[in-house]
């Protein structure tokens, strides 16, 4: 096990509401800077306007709505290089993009993804919700329903993309897709009876993120 040799820090950037394409471009830029050692680890937090994104391993059949429907309902559609299948982002959903150099943490993609799940599980616990892992189905689940989706891209051990936690997402929009190709229900903190604001969830996520990834 590679223990972090030096004290690591992470810069948190709260992007507020930002279109997916713009956030993607920003991530790409930061990944390059991180690879070249120009910056340290970054943790981007953002809420996207309605958007459906398709991962590299996605199947078009998991987008239930036609592109015309997506267009007519004001939902953007992108194909992306992250892992995983199709997902939806929209207002009320907290999206986190950690740009982390795994050489300086652990060179282990499973450890990285399990840690991301751990961040969310601990965050949910802060609001009295018990989140769980399901073997073979990356993400965080509450009972039978998925509350957080995860999909990651690695380039030279620098991560991008990340997680999407439903805080107060209008879950109706998930009808347009088969989330991650799984025909399981989705849920949100709001639906689980948690009235926490987006800002409260953001600060809990940041605290737990720093804890799990052992930042100073």
């Amino acid at each position, binding site marked *: 096990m590679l223990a972090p040799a030096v004290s690591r820090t992470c810069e948190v950037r709260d992007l507020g509401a930002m279109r997916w394409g713009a956030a993607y471009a920003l991530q790409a830029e930061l990944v390059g800077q991180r690879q070249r050692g120009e910056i340290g680890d970054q943790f981007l937090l953002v809420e996207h306007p309605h958007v459906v994104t398709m991962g590299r391993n996605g199947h078009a059949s998991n987008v239930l709505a036609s592109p015309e429907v997506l267009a007519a309902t004001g939902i953007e559609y992108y194909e992306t290089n992250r*892992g995983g299948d199709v997902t939806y982002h929209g207002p009320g959903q907290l999206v986190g993009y950690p740009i982390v150099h795994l050489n300086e943490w652990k060179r282990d993609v499973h450890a990285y993804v399990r840690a991301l799940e751990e961040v969310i599980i601990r965050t949910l616990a802060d609001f009295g919700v018990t989140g769980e892992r399901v073997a073979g189905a990356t993400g965080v689940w509450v009972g039978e329903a998925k509350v957080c989706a995860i999909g990651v891209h690695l380039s030279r051990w620098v991560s991008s993309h990340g997680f999407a936690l439903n805080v107060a997402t209008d879950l109706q929009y998930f009808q347009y897709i088969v989330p991650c190709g799984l025909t399981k229900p989705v849920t949100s903190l709001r639906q689980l009876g948690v009235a926490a604001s987006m800002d409260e969830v953001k600060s809990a996520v940041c605290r737990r993120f720093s804890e799990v990834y052992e930042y100073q």
Partner: protein
Amino acid sequence: MIDVVMPQMGESIVEGTLTRWLKKPGDKVERDEPLFEISTDKVDTEIPSPVAGTLAETLFEAGAVIGINTVVARINDGAAAADPAPAPAAEAPTLAPDKSVANPAVLEPTGPAPEAPPVPDPQASAPPPPAASAPTPSAAPAPAPAAEPAEAELGLLSPLVRKMARENNIDLATVKGTGAGGRITKEDLESAISAKAAPAPAPAPAAAAPAPAAAAPSAGAPPPPARAEAAKYRIEPMSTMRQKIAEHMLASQETSANVTTVHKVDMTNIAKLRDRQKDAFKAQYGYSLTFLPFVLAATAKALREFPIFNSSIDGKNIVYHNDINIGIAVALDGGLIVPVIQHADEKNVVGLQREVVDLAARARSKSLKPADIQGGTFSVTNFGSFGSVFATPMINQPNVAILGVGTVEKQPVVVNDAIAIRSMCYLANTFDHRLIDGALADQFTGRVKQLLENWSDSVL
């Protein structure tokens, strides 16, 4: 030759899925340039090349699950002995486009562009000059297509050699084999590819290219002639949406056995009624009265009488829908959508007209709700509003039929052996012949026609 292995991506990870090759055999790669992508558990990882060189061989196809430390590809780093290829010259031209292929940042807009380098490289993509690398005169005048010659002529060929030749458009007949018994080896192919990629030396094309062929556009001959005249076409990648629409349309055509039947309908009664009441209607409801709600009302009634038109196919079962939810096609800029009038049979002409206006307006302002576009059991498309007399609509899957309404116009028709002027309209019914036979389709369309021709109810 350097082996590239499946890397270990974590302590507990013993295998990964190769999701995509970013390079193909014959491509030049730089050190650290992404070669392929693997996927393990929701994480996609780009695997960079350990050395600079030419990707010589790929040992797995995309989709393969590969154990760690298994050799996935081989890269010719130039250290391999007697390779006479003019390496430096060959390397230069492909650099720029390769970078753009590998760089995910080009994904930024909606396009899924990575497969198609946005900057075409004339030297890499143009067909080779006919005889640039051909020592024999046999390949002469025509730009010989790189067809694979018979095995007998060339001796045994490995699948890799065939593949490399095909992908690089190399005519194997022009390649001199240096292997056992004159067999063409991979190295021979690499030399041929390098020779082709390098700017052709002056004498070859001059000697081989016959006069007319020299005028061929972008033949890749020595210094590419400056393009003085204006471009004759423009190439633009299809948007993701356009690609998806293309898929959907083909999928519909491949799913159902489409047949269209057309009935001529006398809309005079309704035209007169509409003329009488349209001003009062507009004053009372705020929107115009069109022919469409009459067609919808008649269709909903006929659907109740012919439930198979309100069904869908599920494997070997027929699913009869109890609700009659009619989708109406609405044209948008660069696309179209089919919002749904739920329980159309429970609404009168006023209510149907209201829904048509509302759904179309919200479709155009992108404010439809998910429920507005779900659950359609039958569709109506009103191409008559664009002046079409009749067309053959595509079925909106998983429906089994769609009714197209042509424009309503006055025509001379024979009524009781006299020529009369009537408001006529063609109704085109495209139905799925897997489930519905022609006779039944005509009974259904005939019933809609009958209801429309005998319309007597007042609207207001």
